[in-house]
């Protein structure tokens, strides 16, 4: 995760609170929050190399596949649940969102916006599956099995009666601009949602 994402997200996290990071990678974000906000960290990860990096960084990491459920986590047991750049890779994003809301009232999701204009253009003009720095994969090796757009996620929030606390759309440099604020689903590359129910 980029540093700018971190800066945006961390303002929604209370100092000393308990944070569950689903797909915590090498633990960079949790390590940062530990240092800056003295949080009680818990990361979920399945990649052995990343898990070892978490251990090296002193980050608490549990080897668990979130596609197999999160029922071992009690309801309302965390202050914040985070899912960064992983929504599009899970088997059932809708079920995962429900599970996140069960575990915490404070949920944060970030994902690459599939409807970004360059992606649209690539599909419309050349007819290839879009690739960009936020979607660096070929169609055959991508872990992204459920691409979604900002409009799609807005619809999910409406249908499931989620309450969006903040929605930020950022570009490659993880900054917002006038155009993005005007047409987030067209100009936004990464979406950051902070929501509750």
């Amino acid at each position, binding site marked *: 995760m980029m540093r700018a994402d971190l800066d945006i997200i961390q303002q929604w996290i209370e100092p000393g609170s*308990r944070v569950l990071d689903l797909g915590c990678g090498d633990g960079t974000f949790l390590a940062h929050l530990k240092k800056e906000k003295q949080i*009680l*960290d*818990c990361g979920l990860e399945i990649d*052995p190399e990343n*898990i*070892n990096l*978490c*251990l*090296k960084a*002193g980050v*608490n*990491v*549990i*080897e*668990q596949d979130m596609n197999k459920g999160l029922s*071992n*986590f*009690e309801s309302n*047991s965390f202050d914040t649940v985070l899912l960064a750049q992983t929504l599009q890779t899970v088997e059932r994003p809708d079920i995962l969102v429900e599970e996140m809301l069960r575990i915490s009232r404070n949920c944060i999701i970030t994902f690459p916006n599939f409807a970004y204009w360059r992606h649209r253009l690539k599909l419309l003009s050349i007819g290839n599956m879009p690739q960009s720095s936020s979607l660096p994969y070929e169609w055959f090796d991508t872990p992204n099995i459920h691409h979604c757009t900002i409009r799609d996620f807005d619809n999910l929030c409406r249908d499931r009666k989620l309450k969006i606390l903040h929605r930020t759309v950022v570009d490659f440099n993880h900054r917002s601009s006038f155009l993005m604020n005007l047409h987030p689903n067209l100009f936004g590359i990464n979406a950051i949602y902070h929501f509750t129910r």
Partner: protein
Amino acid sequence: MAKSTPSDSVGLVSPELIHFDEPLELRSGRSIDEYDLMVETYGELNAQKSNAILICHALSGDHHAAGYHDADDEKEKPGWWECCIGPGKPFDTSRFFVVCLNNLGGCAGSTGPSSIDPDTGKPFGPDFPIITVRDWVKSQARLADRLGIQTWAAVIGGSLGGMQVMRWAISYPDRLRHAVIIAAAPKLSAQNIAFNEVARQSITSDPDFHEGRYYDFNTYPKRGLMLARMVGHINYLSDRAMRDKFGKDAIEGSFGRDLRSGKLNFSYDVDFQVESYLKYKGETFSTQFDANTYLLITKTLDYFDPSVDYDFDLSKAFAESQCKYLVISFSTDWRFPPERSREIVNNLVKAKKPVSYLEIDADQGHDAFLLPIPRYIEALKSYMDCVADEVNPGSQ
């Protein structure tokens, strides 16, 4: 000339017998007036006495966890956890002071059923009290006092050793900074207890058992102990591990036939390698281990369940603990499978304790925790390096 030992080994070591004369009140209500513990240490205790780690052994383990005892014996095997203890290894003896003891009731030098009862002048035998994990940990805490260690940097153990680690975190929450629980379970399953009972029945039904007083008859239940160990071995290895070990010849069509004869006997003699292997392992073990200690420790296992004092809610048992946890399981372990470790982890998460958990893909079954499996060793090293940075001032 003394033999040379590998540079990443602690080298030649000698154990020390430490006497305790303050009575130890046991969980059973009985007590032991005085006792000895056989202890081995590696590395140096720092000035702050903050870098000590305790290694807890499993059923058949003892104080000799690393290094060598005999300066001349070239064929001597090193201690049972040589792959983890030594300079540069996960339990790095250049950074930690490592303590390992033979538990009370053992048969490697500490007071146990084969020791002489000062009241009768004869071995305790079956009169030796049943020792629980809680009692062991109490005796280990007294050892820590004796060594001047107020707080362990980490308490570490596999299998039954992992159960001692849990008990440490529960009974002495302010006396350890890290708990490393490997291939363990929060309590035994009915199947685990059943295996233990078969082992016990094998021993007690041996005519040479003499109701546990075999010392007086100058004999020991060799066959019983051998059977007990054979059953144990099946339980400690995975199906896959056995296939790898004994099934290789199957590819060539001989289905793991015993190499000594190479052909089928059409009798009840040994035909397959797995049979001779189990027999060999059982026989070797029976000459090295005391039958009463085996009975005692299987009972210690059966009785382990720290949740009993907490409405059978393990998370409540962990509530007061202050340490960080590392829990590790192995994919093919069918004695204490990964789901048993996940039970521990889930209860720690429920108790809001800091915990890391790894499920290591390994073919070797329960025994994997003793073996140098790369991902496992690397994970232990990564974790313990952080512990070392934390407890050795000026090292960060």
